[in-house]
């Protein structure tokens, strides 16, 4: 089935099998491998992207459902070569260990801050319940999101 999707500002048209998951469309068809497959069972959040501005687990969505939508992946977050404040926060607070969960953590955190501009530590922990870090590096991830929220005027 033919779909047209705007990804990181660029319109892409492809013919896809209905059973192709969005995450495989992004990684295998378009080469956007920043988005990771972790658990592949809708739990870990490492495949998180934005669909029309909302955080989505792209392993739990068919590419055909995204027809006509706007998608942002981790590759589309930095504007004009400068890191997004959330990326800076993860850099400065060392919000990662192995880095595998990081793209999903950052995409989930950016979406979360849109709805909660002034989060407490508890808000951040609740907001990121859909993202798992198997290094258990949560402490610095929460610090990174807090730092980003302050930088973004929260």
């Amino acid at each position, binding site marked *: *089935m033919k779909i047209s999707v705007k990804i990181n500002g660029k319109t892409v048209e492809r013919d896809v*099998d*209905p*059973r192709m*998951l969005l995450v495989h469309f992004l990684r295998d068809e378009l080469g956007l491998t920043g988005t990771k497959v972790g658990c*592949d*069972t*809708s*739990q870990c*959040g490492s495949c*998180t992207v934005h669909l029309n501005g*909302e*955080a*989505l*687990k792209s392993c*739990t*969505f*068919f590419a*055909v*459902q995204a*027809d006509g939508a706007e998608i942002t992946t981790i590759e589309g977050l930095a504007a004009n070569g400068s890191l997004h404040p959330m990326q800076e926060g993860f850099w400065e607070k060392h919000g990662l260990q192995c880095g595998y969960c990081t793209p999903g953590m950052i995409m*989930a955190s950016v*979406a*979360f801050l849109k709805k909660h501009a002034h989060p407490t530590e508890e808000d951040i922990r609740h*907001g990121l*319940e*859909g*993202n798992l870090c198997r290094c258990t590096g949560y402490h610095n991830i929460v610090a990174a999101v807090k730092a980003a929220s302050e930088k973004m005027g929260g």
Partner: protein
Amino acid sequence: MYPAKFDYYRANSVEEAVKLLAENSDAKLLAGGHSLIPAMKLRLTQPALLIDIGKIDSLKNIKANGSLEIGALATHARVAASADVKKWFPALANAASLIGDQQVRNFGTIGGNIAHADPASDPPTVLIAAGATIHVRGASGTRAIAAEDFFVDLFTTALEPGEVVTKIEIPNLSGRKSAYAKMSHPASRYAIVGVCAVLSMEGDTCKEARLVVGGAVAHATRLSEAEAVLKGKKLDAAALKAAADAAIAQVGDDAMGDITAPADYRRAMVGQYLQRAIQSALG
């Protein structure tokens, strides 16, 4: 993981979805897909045709006008954030905010949730407590099903083949106090036990209590024994304890158990969370 192959069709109206369902016995509806797609990936279900209703905007509305109407495609995030839901039935907004995580709430829908009828889900419990009505449409027309009669067993509802959930209607609950108390599974956030209380009070005295348990049993169920215990009583500690004991006795051997929460434990927690829901409703 890839699901088995299927054909895909995007329906533009409820009428079209109903027609396609009638013509294809091995078809399933795709709404938010957050229960169906994981099941398809595990090949627990392998429909030949997916009818995508996710872009039918007329099913997405939430409006309050005499009763509160929630379109089947309203996402959990929208139900949780809706000013109308918070005003009419705050226990539902709270329950919706406790489902899964932000990503799941952004795409999972209330209609898909109830049609799936997972026993560990939250909306069935609060919808029965509210006395909600489920509106459905099939090839032979529309019908309305009381939420209490809708959930029949594990993953089993009163929906007939070919019927589509169109909206959920919640009656005017003004003057009633309500709350949902939930013990979440620490990883999945599904309800180990969830209890919803909707109370009609006259001063300190309970005129009527609607108490519903989910999570611990095969489908959300009214705790009618506990409701009877509280009717006409002052809701003091002794009354709550008596209601909890009645609820535990009613759940009895129906309590489900697994590696996280054995049946004995869940049964005991029904009593605890019943009391918490009532206390929370009373403020």
